[in-house]
C-alpha cells in the first residue's frame, strides 16, 4: 500500500490532542494562583486552537488557516507582553503575583 | 361676551398654548431669583392666563359640540409615525379646566414653602404641563410621555417638601406608579402594532380607533390588552388593592402636592380608562365589566371603612378619595351613557371637593402643628371660619344635595341601579348605598372630634390663628364653585352632552 496513506494520521487525533491541551490550559487557569502560570495556561489554550487551525488547514488543503494561526500567534505574543507588564506592575505594588491576593475590588 | 366674539379666537392657537404656557411658567419660576413673593406671583400669573385660555377655548368650542383638535408633524420615519396630535372633547375639556383651575388655586393657596420657593412653584407648573398634556394628547406616544412627565415633578414635590417619611413615600409613589405605567406601555404597544398590521406604526388615537372599528382586534386580544391597560390605570386611580402608594404619598406630600395629586392626577387613571379602554376595546370592556363593578364596590366600601379607622385627618381624606374614585369606576363599569356621563361628572366634582378637603387638612397641620384627630378638638371656637370651610367641604364630600357631590353620586347610583335592573340583580346596590351611610359616619365623627366638643388641651392652642386671606380666597372660590355646580349641574352636563354618544357609538 502507498506510504502516503500510511503516514496519514486521522484528524481525530489532532482534535483530541487540541481538546486535551485546551482542557489542561483551562484547568490550569482554574487551579493555579500565580499570575504568570495562569498566563502560560492561557497560552496553552490559544495554542490548542492553533493546532486545530493547522490540522484543518492541512486536511482542507487551504492556506487561510495558517494565515489565521500566524495572526493568532502574533496576538498571543502581544497579549503576553502586556500581561507580563501588568503583572510586573502588580508585583511592584504588592510584592506578589498571587491573584488570590487581588481582592480589593469586589461586591 | 361681545368682545370675545369680536376677537377671532381661531386665530389664537389655544391648544398648543395650553401646553406651552405651563412649561414657560415653570422655566420662569425657576429662573426667577429665590424670592417667595415674586415666584408665587409669577406662578399665579401663568396659571391664571392658562385658566383664562381654557375658558376661552370652552367658549370657543361650545358652538361646535365641544370638539377641537390640531395636529403638527413630528416624527415620520419608515417605521414610525408619531405626530403632535392634541385635541379636546367634552371630557378632556372638563379635565383641562379642572387642572388649570386647581393649579391656580394651589398657587394662590401655597405660601408656606419658604425655602427654594422658586423650584417649588416651578415643579407645580411642570406638573401642570404634564397633566395638561395627558388630557390634550391624541397620540399614544405623546400621551405616554406626558403620563410619565407628570410623575417626576410630583416625586420631587413629595421628596423635597414632604413630611418626615417623605423618602419612603416618594420612592414608593415613583416606583409603584412607574411599574404600573410600564405594564400599561405593553398594552399600548400591542394596540398600536396590531392596529398597524405590518405597516407603519401609527401612534395616533384615530388610527387605533379606526383599526378597532375595522375589527382588527379579536376578542381574546381585547380581553388581554384591556387587562394590561386597566392595571396601569387602576394603580393610578387607585383601586383597592393597588392603592397603598396613595395614603403614604398624600400624608407626606405638601398641601399643594396633595391637591394636585388627588384633584387631577388620580383622574388620569379614570380618564384613560374611558378614553382608551372603552373607546378602543369595547368587547374587552364587556368581558371585564363584572370585575370592574366588583372592584368599584370594593374600593367604595374599603375606602369608606378605612376612613373610619384613620387617626390622621389627611390620611382619612386620602382614603375618602379612594372611596370616591370607586364611584367613578362604578359609573364607568355600567358601560352606559348615563354611567359614563356621571363618572366624568364625579371626576370633576371630586376634583373640586377633595381640593377643599386637602387644603383644610393643610391648614390644620400648619396652624395647630398636628393632624392627629385625637389630639384635636373644639377648633371651632378658635377658628370659626376654618370650621365653616371644613364643615362645608365634609358635607359636600358626603353628598349633600345642593352641592356638586350629590348630583354626581345620584347620577352614578342611578346608572348603576339602571344597570342592575337590566340584569335583574338588585342586591349589589345595597353596598353602594351603605357606603353613603359610612361616608356620613366618618365625616361627622371626624368633625365631632376635631372641631366640636371642648377645646383640646393636648396641644398648645394659644397662638393658633384662623384662616388667613390667601387660604380664604382659594377655599372660598372652590366652595363657591362647588355650590354653583351643585345648583346648576346642567352647566357641566351640557359640556358632556356629546360624550356618551361618542362612546356609545363604540360601546
Amino acid at each position, binding site marked *: 500500500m502507498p506510504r502516503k496513506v500510511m503516514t496519514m494520521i486521522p484528524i481525530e487525533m489532532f482534535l483530541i490532542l487540541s481538546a486535551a491541551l485546551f482542557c489542561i490550559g483551562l484547568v490550569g487557569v482554574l487551579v493555579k494562583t500565580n499570575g504568570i502560570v495562569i498566563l502560560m495556561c492561557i497560552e496553552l489554550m490559544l495554542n490548542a486552537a492553533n493546532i486545530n487551525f493547522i490540522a484543518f488547514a492541512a486536511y482542507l488543503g487551504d492556506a487561510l488557516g495558517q494565515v489565521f494561526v500566524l495572526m493568532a500567534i502574533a496576538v498571543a505574543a502581544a497579549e503576553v507582553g502586556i500581561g507580563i507588564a501588568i503583572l510586573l506592575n502588580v508585583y511592584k505594588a504588592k510584592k506578589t503575583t498571587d491573584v488570590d491576593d487581588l481582592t480589593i475590588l469586589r461586591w | 361676551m361681545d368682545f370675545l366674539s369680536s376677537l377671532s379666537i381661531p386665530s389664537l392657537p389655544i391648544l398648543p398654548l395650553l401646553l406651552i404656557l405651563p412649561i414657560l411658567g415653570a422655566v420662569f419660576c425657576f429662573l426667577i431669583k429665590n424670592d417667595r413673593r415674586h415666584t408665587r406671583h409669577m406662578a399665579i400669573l401663568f396659571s391664571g392666563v392658562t385658566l383664562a385660555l381654557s375658558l376661552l377655548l370652552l367658549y370657543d368650542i361650545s358652538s361646535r359640540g365641544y370638539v377641537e383638535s390640531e395636529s403638527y408633524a413630528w416624527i415620520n420615519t419608515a417605521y414610525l409615525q408619531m405626530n403632535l396630535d392634541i385635541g379636546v372633547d367634552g371630557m378632556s375639556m372638563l379635565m383641562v379646566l379642572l387642572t388649570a383651575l386647581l393649579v391656580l388655586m394651589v398657587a394662590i393657596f401655597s405660601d408656606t414653602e419658604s425655602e427654594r420657593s422658586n423650584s417649588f412653584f416651578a415643579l407645580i407648573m411642570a406638573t401642570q404641563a404634564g397633566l395638561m398634556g395627558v388630557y390634550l394628547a391624541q397620540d399614544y406616544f405623546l400621551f405616554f410621555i406626558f403620563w410619565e412627565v407628570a410623575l417626576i415633578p410630583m416625586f420631587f414635590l413629595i421628596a423635597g417638601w414632604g413630611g418626615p417619611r417623605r423618602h419612603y413615600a416618594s420612592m414608593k409613589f415613583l416606583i409603584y406608579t412607574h411599574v404600573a405605567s410600564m405594564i400599561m406601555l405593553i398594552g399600548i404597544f400591542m394596540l398600536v402594532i396590531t392596529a398597524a398590521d405590518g405597516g407603519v406604526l401609527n401612534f395616533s388615537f384615530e388610527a387605533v380607533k379606526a383599526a378597532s372599528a375595522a375589527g382588527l382586534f379579536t376578542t381574546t386580544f381585547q380581553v388581554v390588552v384591556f387587562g394590561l391597560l386597566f392595571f396601569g390605570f387602576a394603580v393610578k386611580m387607585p383601586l383597592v388593592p393597588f392603592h397603598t402608594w396613595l395614603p403614604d404619598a398624600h400624608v407626606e406630600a405638601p398641601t399643594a402636592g396633595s391637591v394636585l395629586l388627588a384633584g387631577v392626577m388620580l383622574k388620569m387613571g379614570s380618564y384613560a380608562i374611558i378614553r382608551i379602554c372603552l373607546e378602543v376595546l369595547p368587547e374587552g370592556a364587556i368581558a371585564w365589566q363584572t370585575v370592574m363593578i366588583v372592584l368599584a364596590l370594593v374600593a367604595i366600601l374599603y375606602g369608606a371603612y378605612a376612613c*373610619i379607622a384613620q387617626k390622621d385627618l389627611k390620611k382619612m381624606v386620602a382614603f375618602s378619595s379612594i372611596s370616591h374614585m370607586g364611584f367613578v369606576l362604578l359609573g364607568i363599569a355600567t358601560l352606559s351613557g348615563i354611567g359614563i356621563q356621571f363618572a366624568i361628572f364625579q371626576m370633576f366634582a371630586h376634583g373640586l371637593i377633595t381640593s377643599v378637603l386637602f387644603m383644610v387638612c393643610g391648614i390644620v397641620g400648619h396652624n395647630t402643628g398636628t393632624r392627629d384627630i385625637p389630639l384635636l378638638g373644639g377648633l371651632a371656637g378658635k377658628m370659626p371660619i376654618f370650621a365653616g370651610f371644613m364643615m362645608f367641604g365634609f358635607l359636600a364630600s358626603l353628598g349633600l344635595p345642593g352641592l356638586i357631590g350629590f348630583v354626581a353620586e345620584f347620577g352614578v347610583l342611578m346608572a348603576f341601579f339602571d344597570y342592575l335592573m337590566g340584569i335583574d340583580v338588585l342586591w349589589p346596590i345595597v353596598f353602594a348605598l351603605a357606603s353613603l*351611610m359610612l361616608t356620613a359616619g366618618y365625616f361627622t365623627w371626624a*368633625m365631632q372630634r376635631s372641631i366640636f366638643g371642648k377645646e383640646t388641651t393636648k396641644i398648645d392652642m394659644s397662638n393658633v390663628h384662623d384662616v388667613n386671606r390667601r387660604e380664604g380666597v382659594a377655599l372660598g372660590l372652590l366652595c363657591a364653585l362647588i355650590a354653583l355646580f351643585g345648583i346648576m349641574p346642567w352647566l357641566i352636563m351640557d359640556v358632556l352632552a356629546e360624550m356618551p354618544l361618542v362612546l356609545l357609538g363604540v360601546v
Partner: protein
Amino acid sequence: MEYAWLIPVAPLLAFVIVGFFGNKTKEGGGAIALGSVLIAFVLSILVSYEYFVTSGLFDSGEAYAPAPFQWLVFGDYALNFGIYIDSLTCVMLLFSSFISLMIFLYSIGYMKGEGARKRRYYAEIALFLGAMLGLILSSNYLEMFIFWELMGVCSYLLIGFWSYKHPEGDAASEAAASAAKKAFLVTRLGDVCMMAGLFVLLFAFKSLDFTTLFDPAEIANVDSGMIILGSLLLFGGVIGKSAQFPLQDWLPDAMAGPTTVSALIHAATMVKAGVYLVARSYPLFIQSADVMLVVAVIGGVTAFIAATMALNNMSLKRVLAYSTVSQLGLMIMALGAGGYVIAMTAGDYHASLGYTAGVFHMMNHAFFKALLFMCAGSVIHAVASEDLRQMGGLSRKMRITSATMFIGALSIAGFPFFSGFWSKDLVFESVMNPYASGLPAGDIFLFLFALALITAFMTAFYMFRMWYMTFKGKPKEAAEHCHGESPKTMTVPLIILSLFAVGSGFLLFVGLNDIITFSVIGGEFMVGGNGKTAEYLFWHVLENKWTYVSLALSLSGIFLAYLMYSRRIINPARFNMGGRSGLYRFLTARYYFPQLYDQISLKLGYGVAKGVDYVDKNLIDGTVDGISNAISGSSDTMRKMQTGNVRNYAAIVIIGTMVLVAVLFILVRFGGV
C-alpha cells in the same frame, strides 16, 4: 300664584344675607330673618287665597303645577324643578310659616344673650324654614329630597349649635355634638332609603314629577311591584325624619339644641315633613293595602312606645319630645288606616277620613306643640334648668307661661273642644274604621285602636305630671332663683298660640273639612274638595261612643297626675320602687334603644373598620413592602457572589459555558419550544 316660588326664596335669601353680614345688622340678623318669614307668611296667605278663591282650581280639585324647569336631563330620565300647589300645600304653607313667624319672634327674646353667635343662629333657622317651605312647594320627589336633606343638615347644625362653648359647660357641648351627629346619621339612614326609593320610582316612571306619578294612567302601566317597593322605601325616609319606630331615638337627644330650635323641629318643620310626605304620596301608597298596613302599624307602635318612655322622664324638654314622637305616631297611624281603607275598597271611595284626621291632627299638633315648647323655653330661660325635680311652684312667678302651658296641655290631652280633642278623636275613629267595616286586617286595627286609647291615657297623664311638677308644689332649688316672667317678645307669641291651641279645632267646621281631604273618584285622585260636611263631622264626633271612652281615659289620666304630683296623695315611688323597678329602669333606658344603636354602629362601623385597617397595613401594604424587601435582599446576596477573586470569575465563566451547552442542548432536544 306664579310668585309662589318666592315663599321659600325669601328665607333662603335671608340665610345668605344674615350668614354673611348678619353681625352688621340689628339683633345679629334677627330682624332680617323675622322680616323674611313675615314675607313668606304673607305670600302664603296670598297664594292660598288665590288658590282657594280666585283661581277656581280648588273647586275642580286640581293642583296648580306650572311647566317645571328642566334641572338635569340624562339618558331618558328627566329631573325637573317646579312648584306644585294644592290644598294640602296651602295648609302646610300656612301653618308652618305662621308658627315659624311666632318662633322667630320668640327667638328675638330667647337668644338675646347669645352675642356674636346669633348671626349663625338666625342664618341657620332661616335656611331651615326655607328648606321646609321649599319642600312643601316641591313639584317632584327629587326636589323634595334635596330640601329634605337640607333640613337634615340644618337640624345637624342647630342641634349642634352649642356643640362648642356650651353655656352649661364642656360636657354639655360634647353631648350636643354627639346628639347632632346622631340626629344626622339616623335621619341619614332614612334618607338613604328614600334615595333608593327615588331610584326605583325614577326607573319606573322615567320622571319624578308629581303630575306624572299621581296620574292614574301612568300608574296603571307601571309594574305594581316597583310602586310597592318605591313607596316602602319612601316610607323608610319618613321613619327616619319623623322619628318613627325603630329610628325614633334621635329626637329626644335632639333636645340638646336651643329650645326654639326644638320648637321649630317639632312643630313647624322637620318632623312634619315626614307626615307631609306620606300624605303627599297617598296616590302611590294606596296602590297596596299592605304598605298602608305597615304604615299604620309602625305609627301605632311608635305612638305607644314613645308615650311609655315619657311617663317617668325627668327632663322637661324630653317629655315634650316623647310626646311629639307619640303624636306623630298617631298621625302616621291615622294616615295608614285611612289609606288602608281606600286601598281595600278600591275604585270609588268618598273622602278618606284617615287622611283628614292625620293632616288635621298634624296641624293642631303644630300649634299646641309649638306653644308647649315655647312655654318650656320660657321656663328654662327663667330657671336655667330642664330637670323637673328642680322646679315647682313656678305658676306664681310666671303666670302667663303657666296659664298658656296649661292650655297647651289640655289641648294635647284632648280636653273637650280644645283643638286636640277634635283631631284626636277623628284619628281614633279612622283607626277604628277598618275594623268597623270588617276589612281583612280589621283585628290588627282593633289592636292599634287599643294602643291608641292607652296612649291617650298616658299622654294626658304625663303632660299633666309635667305641668304639676313644674308649676305646682313647693319650689325646689332651681326654681328659687327664678326672676319672674319672660320678656314680651316671648310671652306675646305664647298668648297668640294659646288662642290657636284652643280654637284651631273649630277650623274643621269652617271650611277645613272640605280642604284637607283625599278622595278617589272613578280612579281619579282628588286632594281637597268633596269632603264631608261640617255638621256631619261635628255631630259625628260627638255621637261617637269611642269619643267618650277616650275622653274618660284622658280625664282619668289628668286626675291621676293631679293626685300623684299635685296633692301627693299617691306617692310615685310606689310605682318605681325608688328607681329599682325593672320596668322603671327599662323605660329610663329608653328600651335600651341608644345602646342598640351604639352597638350596631360599633360592630358594623368601627369593628369592621379596624379589620380593614389591619388588612390594609399588614396584608396589602405588607405585600408591597415584602416584594421590595425581597428584591433588595436577593440583590444583597447576589452581589456577595462577586467575591473579587479572579479565579472564581474564571470558574463562573466556565460553569456558565457548561450551563449554556446544557440549555442549548435542551432547547434543541425539545424542538426550540
